[in-house]
């Protein structure tokens, strides 16, 4: 089926139009799982396998997390496909994850024939109703001729402004229907202004505040990565001499080895960046949304500071933190303009305050977990060694829990778009499928999934996908035989009542081998480096189970509901 043979007079089915739209939108890889109501599209796909790659996952949740991983490390939206009913509802967690983390996704679901809508037909579910709270936009298509316009709109909305997931539900009769195919990419929508006009006057005011500041401080979020403003952030920070701290999703937007890098914010972030948020005089938040894990107790958060908040989404401004200067703007454009407006400066006295707290954290926390000499392996030393061996240049995909916080703290990201994790929703089971999605988007880069034993078992069936498509993703399971973060909270805040957090785990290496994936288990400190080297040297997928300390806690920690001033080192 040659694409060249299709022209405006060619009549094709709606199902074939779906595939044609994906190709015309530049989609090279997508993820999905067939079923009754999407079968016409899969039948059409049969003829296009040389033009577009479809990855058959083992569960629709795997498809959408893989699409998320794909999107997060590329400049393209992730695309996934599922059937009606349970196929579509299995996407919901991923949609919620993607809208929380501003991940551009286009999800296509099959639906029963339009005559059966609302009749409780087999595998009929109100997918539009269910997905509305967790999509940036969604629609149902009941006519074949409406498919190209709906998909063009979907791709545009998913990627423009603050990105997010969209869903297009296509009835089976629309898939079978005939239409004259013509595809026009959507480049604008009436009454939708995703890119705000740069507010130069406000930026001048911001520059004035920054120029007069004695202790300015930048909080960098994922908006930097989404707008491609990494270089602009470095240029701005260097010219104005301002320390930069990163949110969880902002990690890798600013190199960890840069002299102005202050560290990681949040509940388990670094000591200095959290404490000094309440000491700075001008707080410049860019592309971040003051998540509760970053602010702690909001009414004691940065009260002394004049807050400048730059975000593309107007609804984020003044949502959580009272902001003196809310600036709705694209981060890249705003930073570029600001760099031209600020004076060259340095704030060495202010920056030295970070170093003093860094030293305290090093002595009380970091040195102990990175360089232990006895006892069981610690998560931090595994991540640290991995960071050294990969020179901070790998893509790290993490799940949710202690291992996620440890990886975020100790992997020294040097390349941008290298941190893929489930931030806002905190979805266990995210990492394994997201990792192979990321690997398919960036085949030349090393992609390492770091996962806890709990999260791994939520989507481990996706080893089947890795096996089938021979995706050379590396998997490190940090196994403490506990749901570690919940256990930590039980220990600290629930009188050590370990209610249903201890896990009886299977032989993970044997499971991997069942899928013909090589693997090994390491328990001794002296064996760790060699095991990690074998993991990295492997040309194919490889699973390394690391047995780590059973009841290790992640510190520093801002207790839930406490001020960031109350961050604990032990």
């Amino acid at each position, binding site marked *: 089926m040659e694409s060249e043979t299709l022209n405006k007079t060619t009549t094709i089915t709606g199902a074939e139009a779906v595939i044609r739209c994906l190709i015309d939108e530049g989609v090279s890889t997508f993820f999905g799982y067939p079923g009754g109501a999407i079968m016409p599209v899969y039948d059409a796909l049969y003829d296009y396998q040389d033009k577009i790659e479809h990855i058959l996952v083992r569960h629709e949740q795997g498809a959408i997390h893989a699409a998320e991983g794909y999107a997060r490390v590329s400049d393209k939206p992730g695309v996934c496909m599922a059937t009606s009913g349970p196929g579509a509802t299995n996407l919901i967690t991923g949609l919620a994850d993607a809208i929380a983390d501003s991940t551009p996704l286009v999800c296509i679901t099959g639906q029963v024939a339009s005559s059966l809508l609302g009749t409780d037909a087999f595998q009929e579910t109100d997918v539009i109703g269910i997905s*509305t709270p967790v999509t940036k936009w969604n629609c149902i298509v009941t006519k074949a001729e409406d498919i190209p316009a709906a998909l063009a709109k979907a791709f545009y909305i998913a990627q423009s402004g603050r990105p997010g997931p969209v869903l297009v539900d296509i009835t089976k009769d629309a898939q079978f229907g005939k239409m004259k195919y013509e595809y026009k990419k959507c480049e604008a929508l009436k009454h939708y202004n995703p890119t705000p006009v740069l507010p130069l006057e406000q930026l001048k005011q911001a520059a004035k505040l920054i120029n007069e500041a004695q202790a300015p401080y930048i909080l960098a979020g994922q908006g930097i990565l989404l707008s491609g403003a990494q270089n602009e952030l470095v240029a701005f920070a260097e010219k104005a001499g301002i320390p930069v701290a990163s949110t969880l999703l902002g990690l890798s937007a600013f190199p960890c080895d840069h002299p102005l890098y202050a560290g990681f914010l949040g509940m388990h972030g670094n000591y200095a960046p959290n404490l000094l948020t309440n000491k700075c005089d001008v707080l410049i938040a860019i592309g971040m949304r003051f998540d509760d894990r970053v602010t702690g107790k909001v009414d004691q958060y940065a009260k002394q500071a004049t807050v400048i908040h730059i975000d593309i989404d107007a609804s984020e401004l003044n949502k959580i933190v009272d902001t003196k200067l809310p600036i709705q703007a694209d981060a890249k454009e705003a930073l570029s303009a600001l760099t031209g407006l600020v004076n060259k400066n340095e704030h060495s006295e202010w920056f030295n305050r970070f170093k003093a707290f860094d030293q305290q954290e090093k002595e009380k926390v970091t040195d102990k977990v990175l360089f232990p000499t006895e006892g069981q392996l610690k998560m931090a030393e595994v991540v640290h060694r991995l960071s050294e061996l990969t020179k901070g240049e790998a893509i790290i995909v993490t799940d949710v829990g202690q291992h996620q916080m440890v990886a975020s703290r100790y992997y020294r990201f040097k390349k941008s778009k290298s941190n893929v994790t489930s931030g806002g929703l905190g979805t266990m089971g995210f990492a394994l499928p997201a990792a192979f999605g990321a690997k398919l988007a960036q085949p030349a880069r090393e992609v390492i999934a770091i996962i806890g034993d709990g999260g791994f078992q939520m989507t481990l069936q996706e080893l089947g996908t890795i096996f089938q498509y021979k995706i050379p993703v590396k998997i490190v399971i940090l196994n403490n035989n506990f749901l570690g973060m919940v256990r930590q909270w039980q220990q600290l805040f629930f009188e050590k009542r370990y209610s249903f957090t201890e896990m009886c785990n299977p032989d993970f290496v044997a499971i991997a081998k069942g899928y013909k994936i090589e693997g090994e288990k390491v328990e001794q400190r002296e064996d760790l480096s060699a095991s990690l080297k074998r993991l990295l040297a492997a040309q194919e997928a490889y699973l390394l189970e690391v047995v780590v300390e059973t009841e290790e806690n992640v510190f520093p920690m801002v207790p839930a509901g406490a001020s960031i001033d109350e961050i604990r080192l032990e």
Partner: protein
Amino acid sequence: MTNTYTIHVLGNNEPNLLPRIALVFNRRRVFIKNLNASELSDKSQYSYTLTVETTPVWAERIAKQLEKQIDVQSVNYFVHMPVTSDRPAKAELAYCA
């Protein structure tokens, strides 16, 4: 302190916009006391008028959330002011945004 607000949303004539608007309120536990939805003479447009009781902060947040919905064209909201001797009935609604 809560006030009564009238929120007017002008949107595209898209069938899923009404539930999207309702969700903005429901998610924040702001109950809709009155709702009117009507197609305008320009059939591509729909008008929604809602009455809710909420705080000024939440009224502003809700308006911003409504504005970011893809098929919403504009959002205006008004606070109901009590009628007093120095504030005639015709000024009952005060313009907010």
